[in-house]
């Protein structure tokens, strides 16, 4: 479980996040949604410690993270896995080396064990026979899946995904969403997904948190999202033509 309490963040006097509090449940896909520029990625960076919030705290299973010493922060970070928007694969390493990387640096496992684990994770995300390929030789969707394999290779307790299906076709996008949901259920991880893709929200979101202009406006489940009377959320959810048609039918 991750508890975010009263997080605020500003850049050059401009308030980007204002007093945000969320509890991310264990074993669930917790989504942070909102329009572009509302502070979703900044919130995610504050949660994983890439940015320091001006105010507020983040606790990982009752362990204070934001203002903890570097050693404790490092210990908690080693329980995290993260899928970045562009995959963030290391260009100079093969797919296998990329996935093995966290184990090389963080563990002292024998090579054979590491190779077996890498193959297991690549198989888990539906990638086989790509071990020797370079990131530049695989597609965007495959990069995302390699990113997921790298994120889960050390059996993390917390999985973070920043726009996991941006730039992907709808079918690949659904495949990635399902994969994130399955992995979360399977390993009982606390998963936090930042997205503005409504298909993704409805496909895999257990708990949904809507942010608008840096403030938390709505929390609920994917079943409740269509019934809300929060105008900003309705504008966001039903912005697309397809969603408007769905709403009219409802």
């Amino acid at each position, binding site marked *: 479980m991750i508890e975010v309490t009263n997080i605020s963040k500003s850049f050059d006097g401009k308030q980007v996040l204002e007093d945000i509090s969320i509890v991310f449940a264990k074993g669930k896909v917790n989504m942070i949604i909102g329009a572009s520029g509302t502070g979703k990625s900044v919130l995610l960076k504050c949660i994983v*410690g890439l940015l320091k919030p001006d105010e507020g705290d983040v606790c990982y299973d009752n362990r204070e993270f934001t203002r903890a010493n570097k050693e404790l922060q490092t210990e*908690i970070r080693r329980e995290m896995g*993260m899928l970045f928007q*562009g995959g*963030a694969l290391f260009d100079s390493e093969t797919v296998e080396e990329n996935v093995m990387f966290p184990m090389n*640096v963080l563990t002292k496992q024998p090579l054979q064990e590491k190779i077996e684990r890498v193959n297991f994770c690549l198989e888990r995300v539906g990638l086989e026979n790509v071990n020797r390929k370079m990131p530049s030789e695989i597609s965007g969707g495959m990069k995302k899946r390699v990113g997921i394999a790298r994120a889960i290779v050390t059996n993390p307790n917390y999985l973070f995904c920043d726009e996991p299906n941006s730039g992907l076709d709808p079918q690949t996008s659904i495949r990635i969403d399902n994969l994130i949901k399955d992995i979360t259920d399977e390993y009982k991880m606390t998963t936090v997904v930042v997205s503005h893709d409504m298909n993704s929200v409805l496909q895999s979101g257990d708990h949904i948190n809507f942010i608008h202009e840096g403030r938390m406006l709505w929390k609920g489940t994917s079943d409740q999202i269509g019934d809300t009377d929060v105008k900003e959320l309705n504008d966001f959810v039903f912005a697309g033509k397809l969603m408007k048609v769905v709403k009219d039918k409802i």
Partner: protein
Amino acid sequence: MKSLGKFILFIGQLFVRRESFSTYVNLFFEECIKVGYKSIFIIVIISVFMGAVTTVQTAYNLIAPYIADPIVALVVRDMTLLELAPTIMAIIYAGKVGSNLSSELGTMRITEQIDALEVMGINSISYLALPKILASITMFPALVIISGFVTIYGGYITSVITNVITGTDYIAGIQMDFNPFQVKFAIIKALVFGFLVAAISSYRGYYVVGGALEVGKASTGAVTNSCIGIIVADFLLAYLLAPLLNI
């Protein structure tokens, strides 16, 4: 001043929360190949012609009945050991290696690879920059030694081919009044310059904000700042160490 403070903090971060020794050993040797071995060709080519030009220019400026021919080689040797091999090579090294280090780290920054390292609990500054700096401190002195030999040898070949002075006079000249401290002086300079180029370039690349344009700017800035650092350090080292040449 803010940048200087940030640079000092960056250097401080190299030595905290390090990974295992074996991790750095592999990275160190990879970087040695990148910054050292792959720079040998350009260093040799430039050194040969630098020796040739220095010999020809010095010979034409020192042609006089009362100046012995071996003096030309002595001047070439002293210039090579004191300035050409360490300082000029450092500027070339900054152009080749510095821009490469900076753009590599800058690209890693804008594609979130550095963030990925941080999220894994790895001190990205130490993991990425320390092996580069150690490799540079190790390999640049070796490049300077190669450059020194090749420059002086380039001068010899030129003297033989063009006959500005005879080969015998050249050999006599480079042995004349030789002060071994000049070699130590060149190596001390090389150590400092090797550190400056790698540290400044890594710093510029690591803190890139933006996109491809900013990576390019950081790369240019890395070369410019490295050159300024080299020239300032050259003056300070000359001021501090030159008196020892006469002991």
